[in-house]
């Protein structure tokens, strides 16, 4: 490996080790929380909400909840790592190291994707014995997962760069990530919404992430898969461009 590659792999391993050392907090806790959502909503809504033909409400709910956990954990991994480094001051070790913007970007995003994958696989492993799901389009499933996890990891990086204290990250989570993920069709099909909310949902990028992921399982969804993939890819592209620009110019990182 070249010195640059060693630098990248080291940062990636460090970021993985960081969340791995507190696995109870970074993987187990979100899995337990999401399972509680599944228990409560499946029990309360299974006879009331109508979703796709031939798909039970519980089956419909699982991919949405998995994706919601992916969204929240990918964002949390990068944003919390960066703000902790900034607040503790140890970000200087990275800033003084011969690592370029692409290495920062790649290592942080990949580590967040690994955490998101761990959360998603654990959730599926726990639920599949009780709620068997078909996998109609594995390629779409993987593509939507990767684009979603990476997009939210990048959003977490942007939030971490902009934030100066933990409160700022909490604000991003409470006023951006959580509302958009709850209003993205995790618990319902957008076709069941009144016209205004139905149309508004189509401007929420998280809607396409969850809808595309469902397509991977059931082979049909609220919007065509190409539309979901285009939204996911577009969101990732725009977020990455902004994030890389920040890293290249040292925005909020260098005085």
């Amino acid at each position: 490996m070249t010195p640059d590659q060693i630098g990248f792999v080291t940062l990636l391993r460090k970021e993985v080790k960081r969340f791995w050392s507190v696995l109870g907090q970074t993987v187990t806790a979100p899995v337990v929380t999401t399972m509680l959502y599944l228990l409560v909503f499946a029990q309360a809504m299974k006879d009331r909400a109508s979703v796709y033909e031939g798909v039970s409400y519980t089956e419909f709910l699982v991919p949405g909840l998995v994706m919601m956990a992916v969204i929240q954990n990918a964002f949390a991994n990068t944003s919390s790592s960066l703000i902790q480094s900034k607040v503790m001051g140890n970000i200087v070790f990275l800033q003084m190291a011969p690592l370029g913007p692409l290495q920062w970007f790649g290592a942080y995003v990949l580590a967040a994707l690994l955490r998101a994958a761990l959360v998603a696989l654990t959730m599926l492993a726990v639920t599949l014995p009780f709620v068997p799901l078909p996998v109609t389009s594995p390629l779409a499933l993987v593509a939507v997962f990767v684009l979603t996890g990476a997009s939210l990891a990048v959003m977490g990086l942007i939030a971490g760069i902009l934030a100066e204290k933990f409160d700022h990250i909490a604000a991003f989570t409470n006023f951006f990530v959580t509302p958009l993920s709850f209003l993205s069709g995790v618990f319902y099909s957008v076709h069941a919404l009144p016209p205004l909310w139905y149309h508004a949902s189509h401007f929420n990028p998280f809607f396409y992430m969850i809808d595309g992921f469902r397509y991977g399982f059931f082979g049909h969804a609220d919007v065509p898969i190409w539309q979901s993939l285009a939204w996911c890819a577009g969101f990732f592209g725009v977020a990455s461009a902004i994030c890389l620009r920040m890293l290249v110019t040292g925005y909020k990182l260098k005085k």
Partner: protein
Amino acid sequence: MQPAIEIAGVRKTYGPVTALRGIDFEIRQGEFFGLLGPNGAGKSTLISIIAGLVQMNAGRISVMGYDTVRQFRQARRQLGVVPQELVFDPFFTVRDMLRIQAGYYGCGREVWPWIDEMLDRLDLAGKSGSSMRALSGGMKRRVLIAQALVHRPQVVILDEPTAGVDVELRRTLWSFMTELHRAGTTVVLTTHYLEEAQELCERIAILDKGALQVIDTTRELLARHPFRFLRLRLPEGAQLPEALRPLVAAEQEGTLELKLESGRHPISAVFMALRDAGVDIDDVHTREPDLEDIFIELTGRSAAPAGASA
């Protein structure tokens, strides 16, 4: 031979405040170099720019011939910086931290023996498996020093490495740094303890108010000072003759320190004036000027921050 660090026309402003007003100087390869100045002189800003933590508004810096902006990867691989603040990553052990730091610089298992050697030399071997958060301040400082050296840089910058550390660590640090310096490493030191700089540094630059006041060898700096100091303890109640009063530079617990200009105020003239006035002397000492005197002469301020003691 190319300089270890070349600084050309470096300017830095923070809003309306000018931190550096166009700094130009070179640090030669293999030097033990002192960068001194009172608080707010711009030393830490300059070091932060060299390290890549702060962006300069104008100018150019190279480390071992590599531009710190255009060739930042090569420049940073030649450089190790011990930051002033006690920063650490609480998720890792001491050994993990050093291996991670080595990896950032493209070093793999080949530096592990060097890591073990540093752990021994800095009395960290017993703490290698301890979490960073469990270490005392002095131990964290040792880890910071090891982190800066882990990739065997050719140039090492120590930003106030002995601020608030005990005598044992100082002794360990200076013995280790002197050894590295003998082996060819360029060492740049900033400190408020001027006796350390005077003892260790071959050349010294003094910054004040964002500008370079002087740069010279330590010997030349000391020699250019045209004064000598004469300390007198007079019997209780005795008064210094009026003619000698203007020469008093300091007075402490009954001891007077007279500042004598070479050639103009011979010591014999002081003794004659005392004898003529019928004043006895209980005790007498002479003192050569030290770096502190030069520093005060150039900046008008003491180097030690309030409350600090060497």
